[in-house]
């Protein structure tokens, strides 16, 4: 009796030590990650001169909204926001669907030719035609300068597919499939009735990854879109930012260019804030699905 009690006390003391150490580590990480965020936010509210001369360390210096004013004075910002939302929503829907319908059959041990199929999918992660063949391909498909060029190339992320497949393989026991097929559940039904509901966490991850990807994408828009009113937010942001990073050697008259640079030093921070706040809000939604014990409830139910 005494022994058991002692044992219990010592266990919880171990736990306490563990919690203190892990809590401490996480707090340190928290501060380290918080710093750049505070810095960016402060810099975005500071004067250009203070930012470009490194006077901003933690809090805003010479409080000023010039950066935000410049961002929102741009006529294209709102439309670009809307475009990005659209590309992100549709693109993510396609990405997640494609990853799931590919990952599900490939997660099944009883699929013949699985290794070969995995190989041909994985192969595309490494080898591509390069920029010109892709460009010509898009042009031949008549996708150039259309909405679809923003969502179709890259519709299947093999990386996300593999992650999804691993999740399905490890979190959903094979016995469940056997039990279901004895009940006369076919492979399609099994996917919709069991795999999807049990994969909420990985669907959340997929959604998050794809959404962030689409949100940050600018390269495809840059090379494939010609109409200005189709451009997403990132491309407009880059234009504003470019003033900041202009290559002086390209210019005939650097002193004139410098005149431009100084007025927008603060801009890049305002841009980061404007461009990332919406996508930052996506995380808490995804986080909801990372709760533990998803599996257990459904098996019992």
């Amino acid at each position, binding site marked *: 009796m005494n022994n058991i009690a002692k044992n219990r006390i010592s266990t919880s003391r171990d736990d306490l030590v563990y919690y203190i150490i892990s809590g401490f580590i996480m707090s340190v990480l928290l501060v380290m990650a918080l710093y750049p965020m505070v810095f960016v936010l402060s810099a975005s509210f500071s004067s250009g001169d203070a930012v470009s001369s490194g006077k901003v360390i933690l809090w805003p210096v010479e409080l000023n909204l010039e950066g935000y004013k410049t961002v929102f004075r741009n006529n294209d910002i709102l439309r670009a926001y809307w475009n990005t939302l659209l590309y992100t929503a549709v693109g993510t829907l396609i990405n997640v669907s494609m990853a799931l319908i590919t990952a599900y059959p490939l997660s099944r041990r009883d699929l013949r030719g699985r290794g070969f199929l995995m190989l041909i999918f994985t192969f595309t992660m490494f080898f591509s035609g390069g920029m010109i063949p892709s460009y010509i391909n898009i042009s031949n498909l008549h996708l150039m300068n259309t909405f679809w060029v923003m969502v179709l190339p890259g519709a299947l992320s093999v990386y996300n597919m593999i992650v999804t497949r691993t999740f399905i393989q490890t979190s959903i026991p094979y016995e469940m499939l056997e039990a279901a097929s004895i009940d006369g559940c076919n492979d399609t039904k099994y996917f919709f009735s069991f795999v999807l509901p049990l994969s909420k966490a990985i669907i959340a991850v997929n959604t998050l990854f794809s959404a962030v990807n689409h949100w940050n994408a600018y390269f495809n828009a840059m090379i494939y879109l*010609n109409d200005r009113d189709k451009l997403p937010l990132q491309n407009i942001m880059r234009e504003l930012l470019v003033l900041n990073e202009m290559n002086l050697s390209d210019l005939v008259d650097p002193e*004139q260019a410098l005149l431009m640079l100084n007025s927008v030093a603060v801009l890049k921070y305002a841009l980061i804030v404007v461009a990332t706040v919406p996508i930052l809000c996506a995380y808490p939604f995804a986080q909801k699905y990372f709760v533990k014990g998803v599996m257990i409830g459904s098996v019992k139910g």
Partner: protein
Amino acid sequence: MKRRIMRTGKKWLVCMLSTILACGAMGCGSTKEAADQSPAASAQADSSATSSSNEDNGAGETRTLSIAIPQNANVEDYETNYLTKWLEEEMNVDLEFVLLPATSEDANTKVSLWVSSNAELPDVLCMSLSDTVAQDYASKGIFVDLTDYYADPEIAVNINSSRFDEERDTIMNSIRFADGKYYSLFTYNPFPWNEASYRAWVNQEWLDSLGMEAPKTTDEFREMLEAFKNNDPNGNGKSDEIPMMSAKSGYGIDPTTFLMNAFIQTTPGADYMVVENGKLSPAFTTDQWKAGLTYIHDLVQDGLLSPLSFTQDSTQLKTQLTAAEAVVGVTCAGSTSMFGSEPEVVGRMALLEPLTGPEGVCGVSYRPSTAGCIWYITKDCEDPELAFRVGDWFFGEEQSWTARYGQKDVHWTDDPEITKDYLPMFEQYSPAKYVGTIYGSTDIWGQPQNEHWQGSHPYSTPLSEALYQSFAYKEDPDLDSKTNYNTTHLDIYYNKIPDEYVTKFLHTDEELDKLTDYSDMIEYVTSSMAEFITGNRSLDEWDSYLQTLDEMGLNEYVALRQSGFDRANAE
């Protein structure tokens, strides 16, 4: 429970399949958009009626010209821009803009994809391309040869006007291609301040408080730095002074060029080549160079030149330079913008004269202003003559001034009644022709505006006009009290430029291809320089440095550059 899952499952299926089917259908479904595909088409789509009927020039019929131009966040709308409207009215054309990405790198990628996939090009590429790319495209027939248009005073009206008489040869020399032809119109805005941009600045207050004169020689310079270090010039009782500091990159920012020029005349932008009787030789293998390295190394060794100068970027340099209490004695920077905007901080720095070394060398790094190609007429243009005429239009005097300063009599004026009060200070440098006065408070350069194109198109203010530009501001209350760096610069730097110098290298395709084998040559030189100076590498290894250069093919490299140099200077 199970049924509910099934139902949501069905929704998923419907959603997913319909999306995917929709995607599949899109490929063949959108013929209208397919028609819009080529970059040129999207601009020409709504104006296809106007064809290339060439016979009459502006008798009612408005012709269309599509222009690919990089987007600029400071130009609100190219279509409704003041300069565009003026041009369209006067030339009776309708300009259609195909906007390229704003960074030159992105714009180049996009154009190279157009070209490489044989897409139909816009009539005009209004952007600067690298020499290599321009040469490549020109030799493959992407651009129209403009040599005959240039020669025809009926077509190249403004370019053949008296405005360019003095500098036409210089201009035409710098935009000629390796095959001797011309493929582009140009932008040419010479400005002496930019030509010798590696300047050094000294804290005049420190000099005054120590009762010292500005140094003339490398020895005096060293003495001054020592005094800065030891005699507490900022008078706060702490030895927190940094005698000399600069940064790794930026406009005219480099700790070595200013000092090295007291040992051997050298220019970073010209691959540190010395020109003597038309022959190039590298400065960085000479004994003078080694002597210069030794001198600068000793400065670092003795704590007079901060080694941070080789690693920090210009933001950190600016942090030190703009500190309320001065900590930096000497710095190298091309622009006063490094000193921030506080008048007392800017005011305490004074231009330092180029130093004379132990051997009596007193050089200045020099890159002459050249014209840059910016208006390429493409093979798909149906009326290249019109495209040329439109490009030429910008070279009118008023057009060029509008391109830089905005509307006449709104943003600037050449009314002698007004200019006479503001321009005399430049009188001594050139036969005075008072071109303009800017209304100081309305300088719209670098601001979002809709008056001009921020200079990204052909235009020119030749040297004779340029000398007065930037510093003649009306409504500037203390014009007289401000030090005019521009005129000081003309006095102490511009008069020391070398007799022979590299204007540009003009290479053929094959030479350019070979040059890529030596892509790291100059980097090796600057890296070694920094290593020798900071002591990361001992100067005893000088011989192995020379040997490595030799192995990298320095001789072949110089020979390649020599042929490019000769071609550029050939008449």
